C-alpha cells in the first residue's frame, strides 16, 4: 500500500482563492441583516404594547401593560397579595410557574420519548402501527382538551394528571411526526447504507435517527407550544398549584391585572423554551441546505 501521510487535518474547507475580505464582507452583511431583523421585531413588540396600553386606557376594564408589569414585579418571587388571601406563603408567581413548567417538561419529555421511539420503529415493526395507528387516528382528530377531565379522574393527584395529559398529547403528535419522518427517509440512503455493510442497528442509529431530525423538530415545537396551554388548562380544572390554578383563583377574585400577569409570564416562559429548542435545532440541522430547514 502507498504510504499514508498525516495531512488529514485541514483548518478550513474553503479553497484558498476565497479571500479574507470577501469572507468578512459576507459576515458583515449577515450581522447587518441580523440587526435589521431584531429592530423590526422590537418595533412590532413596541407597537403591540402601545396598542394594548391604548385599549386599556379607553376600556377601563383591561389592565394596561404598565400596571401588569408592576404587578409582576411585586409578586414574582414572593407574593404579598397571595399571602393576604390566605394562600401558602413563600411562593410567588415564580413558584407556580415552576409547577407548570415541571408538568410541561416531564409530560413533553415522556410523550416524546415514547412517541418518537414507537414512531421511528413503526416501519420496521408493523405491529406497532397496527396498535397505535388507530389510536392516533381516532384521538388525533378529537380536541384533546375534552380528554382533560378524564385524566383528572384517572390520576386525581397533582402533578400526575397534568403530566399525564401533556404526555398523552405529546405522544400522539410525536408518534405521527416521527413515523412520517421515518417514512420520508430516502430509500437510497438506506440501500446505500446496506451495501456498505450497515446492520439494522447501525442503519437506525446513523441513518433513520439523524435523517428524521428536521421533521421531528417541527413536530416537537408544535407539541411544546401546545403543552403550555394544555398544562394550564389541566390546572384550571382542579389543582392547588400552577399557572392555571392562579388564573382560576384570580378570576374568582376579579383580579384582571393578576390574571393578565400570569398569562404574560407563562407566555414568556414558553417563548424562552421555544427559543432554546430553535437554537438547539439549528445546531442539529446545520447539515440541511439552508432553504429546506423544516419547522425552524
Amino acid at each position, binding site marked *: 500500500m502507498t504510504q499514508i501521510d498525516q495531512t488529514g487535518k485541514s483548518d478550513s474547507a474553503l479553497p484558498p482563492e476565497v479571500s479574507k475580505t470577501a469572507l468578512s464582507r459576507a459576515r458583515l452583511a449577515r450581522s447587518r441583516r441580523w440587526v435589521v431583523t431584531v429592530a423590526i421585531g422590537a418595533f412590532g413588540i413596541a407597537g403591540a404594547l402601545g396598542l394594548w396600553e391604548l385599549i386599556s386606557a379607553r376600556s377601563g376594564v383591561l389592565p394596561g401593560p404598565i400596571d401588569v408589569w408592576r404587578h409582576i414585579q411585586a409578586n414574582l418571587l414572593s407574593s404579598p397579595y397571595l399571602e393576604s388571601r390566605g394562600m401558602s406563603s413563600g411562593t410567588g408567581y415564580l413558584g407556580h410557574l415552576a409547577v407548570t413548567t415541571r408538568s410541561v417538561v416531564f409530560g413533553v419529555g415522556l410523550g416524546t420519548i415514547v412517541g418518537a421511539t414507537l414512531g421511528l420503529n413503526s416501519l420496521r415493526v408493523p405491529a406497532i402501527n397496527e396498535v397505535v395507528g388507530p389510536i392516533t387516528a381516532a384521538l388525533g382528530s378529537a380536541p384533546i382538551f375534552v380528554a382533560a377531565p378524564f385524566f383528572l379522574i384517572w390520576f386525581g393527584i397533582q402533578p400526575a394528571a397534568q403530566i399525564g395529559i401533556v404526555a398523552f398529547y405529546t405522544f400522539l403528535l410525536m408518534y405521527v411526526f416521527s413515523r412520517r419522518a421515518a417514512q420520508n427517509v430516502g430509500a437510497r440512503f438506506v440501500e446505500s447504507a446496506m451495501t456498505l455493510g450497515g446492520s439494522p442497528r447501525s442503519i437506525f442509529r446513523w441513518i433513520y435517527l439523524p*435523517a428524521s431530525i428536521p421533521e421531528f423538530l417541527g413536530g416537537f415545537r408544535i407539541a411544546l407550544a401546545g403543552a403550555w396551554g394544555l398544562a394550564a388548562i389541566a390546572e384550571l380544572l382542579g389543582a392547588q398549584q400552577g399557572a392555571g390554578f392562579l388564573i382560576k383563583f384570580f378570576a374568582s377574585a376579579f383580579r384582571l391585572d393578576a390574571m393578565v400577569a400570569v398569562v404574560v409570564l407563562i407566555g414568556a416562559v414558553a417563548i424562552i423554551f421555544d427559543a432554546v429548542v430553535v437554537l438547539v435545532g439549528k445546531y442539529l440541522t446545520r*447539515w440541511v441546505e439552508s432553504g429546506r430547514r423544516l419547522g425552524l
Partner: protein
Amino acid sequence: MTERDTGSAVSFHDVECVFEHESGRTVRALDGVSFEVPAGQFVAIVGRSGHGKSTLLRCLAGLQATTAGDVRVGDRSIDGPGPDRSMVFQQDAVFPWMRVRDNVEFGLRAQGVAKEERNLTSTRWLEEVQLIDFADSWPRELSGGMRKRVALAAVLAMDSEVWLMDEPFGSLDYFTRRSLHDLLLTLWGETNKTVFFVTHDIEEALILADRVLLVRDGRIVEDLSNSLPRPRDEEVRASRPSVEMTKTIVDHLGSDGNVTLLDPTADGA
C-alpha cells in the same frame, strides 16, 4: 460449497426476476440471465431505460430478490446486501447529515472498526479522490461531482471485492464526468477490483469497460469484449474499431417499432 465453482468473481445462473404489480400484472425484468465475470474485470451493462439493467445490478447487490436462478460472488450464493458488494447510486446517496469523513467511514463504523484505524483508512481514500481538504465539510457544501467522489471513497474504504455502479455519473456535466472516468479507471487500476457499471451511455461504456453486456427485454442479447487501447481518448473513440462497436451496440439496442432503421422484425415491443 458447490461443484459449480468456476473461479469467477461473479456469476449469474439462469437468473429470473419477476415483479408483480398491485394490479396483478407481472413484469419479467430479468429472464434467464447467465454470465460469468472473472475477478478484476470492468463490465459495463448497457441497455435502454426499463429493460432490466438496473434490476440486474440490484440483484447482484442483494437489494432485489431473484425469483429463480442463482447469483454467486466467488463460490457463495448471495443472500441480501453486503459490504463485499458496495454500490454507488445514480441519485445522490451521500448522507447529508454526516461530514465528508464520517460518510467515508460509515461502513467501517458499522463494522465496529476502531477510530484510529477508520481515520487512517478514510484519510488514505480521501487523498486518493482529492477531497482531503474537504474532510470536515458537509455534503451540501460540495458540488455534485465532489459528492460522487465521496461516494467512491466510501466504497473504496470498504475494500469491497465488487464495485456496483448504477449510472453514477448520469447527472454530471460532460467534463466532470470525464474527470470522474479518469479517476475511476485510476482507482480500478490500483485496486484491481471487479466493477459492474450500468449505463445507457454507449460512449461511457466504451471508454470504461473491458466487456459490455447488452441488456434488452430482461435478457443479455450480446456479450462484447472491448479491447480498444487505453487510455481511450477522443482519438481512440473516433477510430474505426470503436465506431464499429458503437454501431453493433446500436444495432442490438436501437431498433424499435417506431425507429426501424435496421431490422423491423427484431422486436415486438
